[in-house]
């Protein structure tokens, strides 16, 4: 029994091979497949393209032709193709006749429209076309070759461009709107900053320095580190002189600062006070001593008085200007 089955299988494989062997070498065209010839009848199977986008249909065409009248052969059956990674959408057939070299040629065309299912390779297995020779009454069949088609990325739908344009226009409008808002806000901030700067420029610097003095030399703190406080006081005085008289006081020594103030026509009393604050602070800062609280308070008051006096003068000057 087993031997019989094996013989049938081998015979089947051989007969299939022989059927396929009838097919000549593949056509060099992109989609045409070799013709299958049986006596006077010839068959050609082709696909519309070797590569098809996922969202486009593929046309599979079987063309059977022979010389003579259309009635010479009768196509009794064309099986639906067995496809992989495709689904058949529709099929159609047509007949026509044409004269070739003075001879009449009958052509029958069967078309199958199919849609790809997913990216990758798709296959159309061999299709059996059965026919009857009306002269002899014999029934025969032809088999198309297996075809392979690559399913590629989908292409844009002609209708989708409109949507894209809509989005682009919307995006541009949004960008313009965003830029306009940003620009407006920036101008607003700039305006506010300018106003603040103008206000700050109008305000005498002494106000700020009085605040800084209180913050950096907190005399009400009983644990105040005197040496540091002297350093802070002297630094603040130097910063104030730099800003007020445009002297490079922070990079100058006390002697240089005093000489600079003298050249700037600064009132004598202010020069004397500055000299006293800086010299006394220098002694504490550089001599290794700790300094006395009472002395610090006196110097603090001297600087405070200096700021107050200059503040009054600045306010008077501003009042006169306005």
């Amino acid at each position, binding site marked *: 029994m087993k031997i019989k089955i094996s013989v049938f299988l081998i015979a089947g494989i051989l007969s299939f091979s022989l059927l396929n062997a009838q097919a000549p070498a593949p056509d060099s065209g992109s989609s045409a497949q070799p013709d299958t010839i049986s006596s006077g009848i010839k068959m050609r199977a082709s696909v519309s393209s070797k590569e098809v986008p996922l969202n486009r249909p593929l046309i599979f065409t079987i063309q059977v032709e022979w010389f003579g009248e259309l009635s010479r052969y009768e196509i009794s059956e064309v099986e639906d193709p067995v496809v992989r990674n495709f689904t058949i959408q529709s099929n159609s057939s047509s007949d026509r006749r044409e004269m070739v070299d003075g001879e009449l040629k009958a052509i029958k065309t069967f078309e199958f429209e199919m849609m790809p299912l997913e990216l990758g390779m798709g296959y159309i297995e061999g299709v059996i076309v059965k026919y009857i020779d009306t002269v002899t009454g014999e029934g025969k069949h032809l088999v198309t070759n297996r075809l392979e088609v690559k399913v590629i990325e989908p292409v844009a739908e002609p209708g989708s461009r409109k949507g894209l344009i809509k989005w682009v226009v919307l995006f541009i409008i949004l960008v313009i709107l965003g830029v306009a808002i940003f620009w407006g806000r920036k101008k607003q901030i700039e305006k506010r900053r300018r106003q603040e700067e103008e206000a700050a420029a109008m305000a005498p610097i002494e106000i700020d320095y009085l605040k800084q003095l209180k913050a950096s030399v907190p005399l009400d703190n009983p644990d105040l580190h005197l040496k540091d406080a002297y*350093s802070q006081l002297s630094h603040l005085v*130097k910063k104030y002189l730099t800003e007020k008289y445009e002297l*490079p006081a*922070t*990079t*100058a*020594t*006390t*002697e*240089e600062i005093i000489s600079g103030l003298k050249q700037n026509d600064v009132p004598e009393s202010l020069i004397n006070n500055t000299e006293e604050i800086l010299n006394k602070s*220098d*002694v504490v*800062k*550089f*001599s*290794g*001593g700790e300094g006395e609280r009472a002395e610090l308070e006196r110097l603090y008051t001297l600087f405070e008085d200096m700021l107050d006096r200059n503040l009054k003068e600045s306010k008077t000057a501003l009042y006169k200007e306005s």
Partner: protein
Amino acid sequence: MNVDIQAINEKIKKESVFVDKIMNEVGKVIVGQKYMIERLLIGLLTNGHIHLEGVPGLAKTMAVRTLSAAIQTKFQRIQFTPDLLPADLIGTLIYDQSTGKFMTKQGPIFSNLILADEINRSPAKVQSALLEAMQERQVTIGDETFLLDDPFLVLATQNPIEQEGTYPLPEAQIDRFMLKLQIGYPNKEEELEIMRRMTQKTIPVVMPVVKPQEIISARSVVQEVYMDEKIERYIIDIVFATRNPRDYGLDELEPLIQYGASPRASINLVLAAKAHAFLRHRGYVTPEDVRSIGPDVLRHRVIITYEAEAEEKTAEDIVRQVLNKIEVP
């Protein structure tokens, strides 16, 4: 750190009295040049040597001679010439026919104040002999080593206007001088006074006012001068700014400096600033001392690039720029 600043101040005031005496006595002969006399005293007080640069006729020799007379020390002026030999400087062994033995003939370096005039006129071997003696404070002649006198201060001059046929000192050797002074012309009033004083019938004579021992003992007092950490950090910032100017916002100096000041500069700046404070009868150093002495300590230790030379920038300009940029504590 607990510092008895009052005690130090008192001590400094007491020990530095001689400074005013010297300044007054030298001032009888030398008009102006306070800057130079002060730096000479700094050299004496810190055991450092001084490199002088200035055109001829600025009373460099006279100032040193006068100072020497005021402090009762020996003075020698050695004119460096192309044919000078090391033996002419340090001394040699000579054969005594009467005894049949070699005896040592000490050279002019055996003195307290040496003015090595136009040191760049002699070849390198003579310069080296002098610099070795400066460094080691001793001289070996034959088999015998002789200690040099104390105080021992060398003032080497280089004439900046004649460079033909000279042997300029290499940077490494210039670095051994504690200070490099640039002596300028006197102002109108000073020159008028010089003119009058030097054309009198009798030129004032300097009297000795200080013994050398007083200066030697003052050296240890100078070392006691207090230097706060803020000042130490200020010195470090100055020296580092010559090495990495970009770190101190001096980007424009980066292409102009080939080599910044060495650690020897930091050491000498500390010593010189202490001595400067001592001359001001102060027991502690202030930023004024550092800024005053800074250019003299640094100008010969900052090596400029060809680019700086092309831009006619000197080491002096760079040092001034650094000092004007670093924030004073």
